[in-house]
């Protein structure tokens, strides 16, 4: 154990390194206050004011309690030969007073907190709706025009209602800078209202424990000055991108929750070096990873399960969710991961050797190639009722 302890001690200057790297404030925005991150939504200011009001009232009470306590302890400390002095052990007036007077403050806190809460729960008519899908362990955001992204893009000063649902377990959508939070519940829709009042980039966390990689289920919220800026960031037109870039995007939206590309196994095997390799299966046979195997594994995950991930694959089928074209893009991405440079053809699956020669015609509308991450037939819609 000694080497580890020495190692531990040798990293005692970690704090200094940290300050060098992130500055004395860490990675905090200059707009943040001591207690809070920047006020980036319409409700943040009143929320913080109420917090500080409670903070100062509590501090006053606390100092009074501890001050009186310390004073009594010193003044009435036990001295040799001195008896406790008689004093009243009951005083109805004072007892009722110190019960009732603090209650008045509590009523104020309740009223103000309830009022701010109600404002934050009622989006105005015509608020833009963005669909948020939580699944282990990433977020997908679907915009009114059908665009999707794994990061949230909002427009400054535009009231936005996030309609949220979960594909598996409980999650919770939390943007500290917005002071707003809502659980994402399987089997029912929840919503989250926000009107961003500051442009910039803000942290998004999952705050309801959801399994192994709960702490990795975080992303960014970008607030753009206008619609055009957002459009440029969110719209994804397949033909403008290389095939592997399309594949990478599909991978992030559909696969990255369970498959890493850093060589570390997660729920499923890591997929960065998989192309062309020989994989051992649970039945002892081996299979070469090629187009047919990838396609089969996406559509029928249980057909050939890699050793160590059985006996039954935890993966759901993507048949009907990913088109053949999408699978072509993913194949191009795996090739690119194995050897950058292959599968670079813009807008189309990599040419020739892949055998899937039907290069997407440039005229094909991009929308039809969007991953179908919002299939209408999805189960959670059933049996809801608020």
């Amino acid at each position, binding site marked *: 154990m000694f080497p580890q302890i020495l190692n531990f001690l040798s990293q005692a200057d970690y704090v200094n390194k940290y300050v060098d790297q992130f500055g004395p404030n860490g990675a*905090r925005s200059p707009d943040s206050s001591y207690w809070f991150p920047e006020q980036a939504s319409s409700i943040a200011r009143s929320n913080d004011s109420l917090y500080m009001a*409670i903070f100062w009232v509590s501090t006053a009470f606390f100092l009074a309690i501890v001050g009186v306590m310390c004073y009594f*302890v010193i003044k009435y400390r*036990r001295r040799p030969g001195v008896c406790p002095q008689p004093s009243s052990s009951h005083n109805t007036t004072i007892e009722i007073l110190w019960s009732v007077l603090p209650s008045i403050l509590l009523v104020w806190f309740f009223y103000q907190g*309830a009022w701010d*809460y109600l404002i934050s729960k009622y989006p105005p008519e015509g608020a833009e709706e963005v669909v948020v899908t939580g699944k282990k362990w990433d977020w997908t955001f679907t915009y009114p025009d059908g665009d999707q992204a794994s990061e949230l893009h909002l427009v400054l000063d535009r009231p936005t209602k996030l309609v949220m649902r979960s594909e598996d*377990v409980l999650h919770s959508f939390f943007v500290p800078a917005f002071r707003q*939070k809502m659980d994402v519940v399987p089997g029912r829709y929840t919503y989250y209202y926000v009107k961003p009042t500051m442009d910039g980039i803000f942290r998004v966390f999952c705050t309801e424990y959801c399994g*192994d990689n709960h702490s990795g289920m975080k992303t960014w919220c970008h607030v753009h000055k206008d619609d055009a800026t957002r459009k440029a960031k969110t719209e994804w037109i397949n033909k403008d991108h290389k095939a592997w870039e399309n594949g990478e995007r599909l991978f992030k939206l559909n696969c990255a929750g369970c498959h890493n590309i850093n060589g570390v196994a997660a729920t499923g095997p890591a997929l960065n070096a998989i192309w062309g390799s020989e994989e051992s299966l649970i039945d002892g046979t081996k299979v070469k990873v090629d187009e047919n195997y990838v396609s089969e594994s996406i559509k029928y995950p249980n057909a050939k399960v890699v050793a160590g991930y059985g006996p039954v694959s935890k993966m759901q089928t993507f048949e009907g969710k990913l088109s053949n074209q999408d699978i072509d893009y993913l194949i191009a991405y795996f090739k690119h991961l194995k050897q950058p440079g292959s599968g670079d053809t813009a807008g189309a699956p990599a040419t020739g050797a892949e055998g899937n020669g039907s290069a997407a015609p440039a005229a094909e509308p991009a929308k039809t190639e969007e991953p179908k991450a919002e299939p209408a037939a999805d189960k959670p819609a059933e049996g809801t009722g608020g």
Partner: protein
Amino acid sequence: MATAEVRHELFGHAEQKNYLNCSKGALSWLLTLDHKRIGIMYLIGVSVALLLAGFFALMLRTHLYYGDSSFLALKWLFGEAANYNANKVYNQMFTLHGAIMVFSFIIPSVPAALGNMVLPMMLGAKDVAFPRLNLASFYLWVFGTGFLIVALMNGGLDTGWTFYTPYSIETDTGVVYATMGAFILGFSSIFTGINFLVTVNTMRAPGMGWYGMPLFLWSLYATAIIQILATPVLGITLLMLIAERMLGIGIFNPKFGGDPVLFQHFFWFYSHPAVYIMILPAMGVISELISVHAQKRIFGYSFIAFSSVAIALLGFLVWGHHMFTSGQSIVVNLIFSAITFSVAIPSAVKVFNWLATLYKGSIALNTPMCYALSFIFLFGIGGLTGLFLATLSTDIHLHDTYFVVAHFHFVMVGGTLTAFLGGMFHWWPKFFGRMYNDFLGRIGCFLVFAGFNLTFFPQFVMGARGMPRRYASYDPEFQIFHQWSTIGAFVLGIGIVLSFAVLLHAVWFGRKVAGNPWGAGSLEWQSSSPPSFHNFDHKPIFHDPYDFDALVYDKGLDTYVAREFMDPNQVPERVPVTH
């Protein structure tokens, strides 16, 4: 009255004949029906649980010293297995830390361990009403805790102590073992509750009315009500969870039309009142400590007594405040927020009453009093930070962040653990007849206090800045707070170990003390120390427990006795002793 020898036997240090040495052998302990021995077995049990769960806490705090999981303290423990997954191990650590602390330590700590030893003697009774039920309760505790340990060894448990569905339905860890454990521990708790309720109702000493009871008994009585009424709901909920996992009955699982939020309602309908199972007895301990060690009648007896009952009853109506972001309706959130504020009042009343008790007292700054003062400080912060969480709009931001973690640790550890330790130091001379090293005891108290603040105060700041709880890794901006917190956790750990060492040392090597070294008025102090098997070798004479003028100092015995038992050859003396 009687001769010097008899007086010594009745009120002095009982070396020869006491409950510890009246019978020998392992079975005389394992099958004992004596509430004091059961209490001591409970004490050993819950202390082991505390140390085990505390060890988990240190492991996860060490892990969090570095934000990127690069420092793998846990890897030492779990070996270099190829499938080592830092997040997974971290998740199991915090789950077992929470589950064992809550179900095996905090809930039984004051009621079952201290309560068992003290409650019958405070009533002037020989034992609890149902001694066999009492022993059964202890063995249920053993089995229940055993199940939690089995869960630890069979794939661990990674749901958080809350077992939220649907994650707890689909995880492949030992949920069934752990829920069985919590289910059995629930019965242990119910048995203790029933026993105490009946004992207090039927076995009070002649002359002791309800308002003659020490406040510790009021708080145990209020706790027993909660244990009996709320714990069955937990039992049923956990059974339904097991059924859902094994049979797929579709109550909580949305895949079969169930509702995961329903589980949260069931769970918190028990677990919020359980918070008061944890804190009410602690408040009772503090009422005793403050009053005895200031030699002052407790201020506002009936307000404190009824605030216990009020907290017990209101505690049933506030569970929804754990679910402000869960998707329950807006109106429900408003109602729960309002009722939650109402619980703040009786808690504040108690603190004010304790302060007023100190007024014009004779305050001895010994170890129990240090813990009591530390309790007021820490519980003050814990209670006041509850206001931020009861307020709807601020709670939405703070919910499920480290702010909540810090808040409930201030109440559970700063409150209950502090009172538990204070109670141990208060009643230790009674049950072992030995005085500990008071100086080291105070050092231990200070380390617990300082380490605790260093651990949890930074978590308020982190939480308000947005650090979510149950995260195995975190953004760089939170690092400095996590590092302070980790250092504090180790100081806290050292303080707790030191306190236990001081107490254990006293059992064998402490200075011998007689029946009532503190000059306390409640009946358990009318016996010898340690008490005899039957608790009292004479008929205890009931006095108002807070009437310190009814006690006189007996120089021959070096202890306090009731005026009736005064040595006729001595001049009665009322002055508190300074040791």
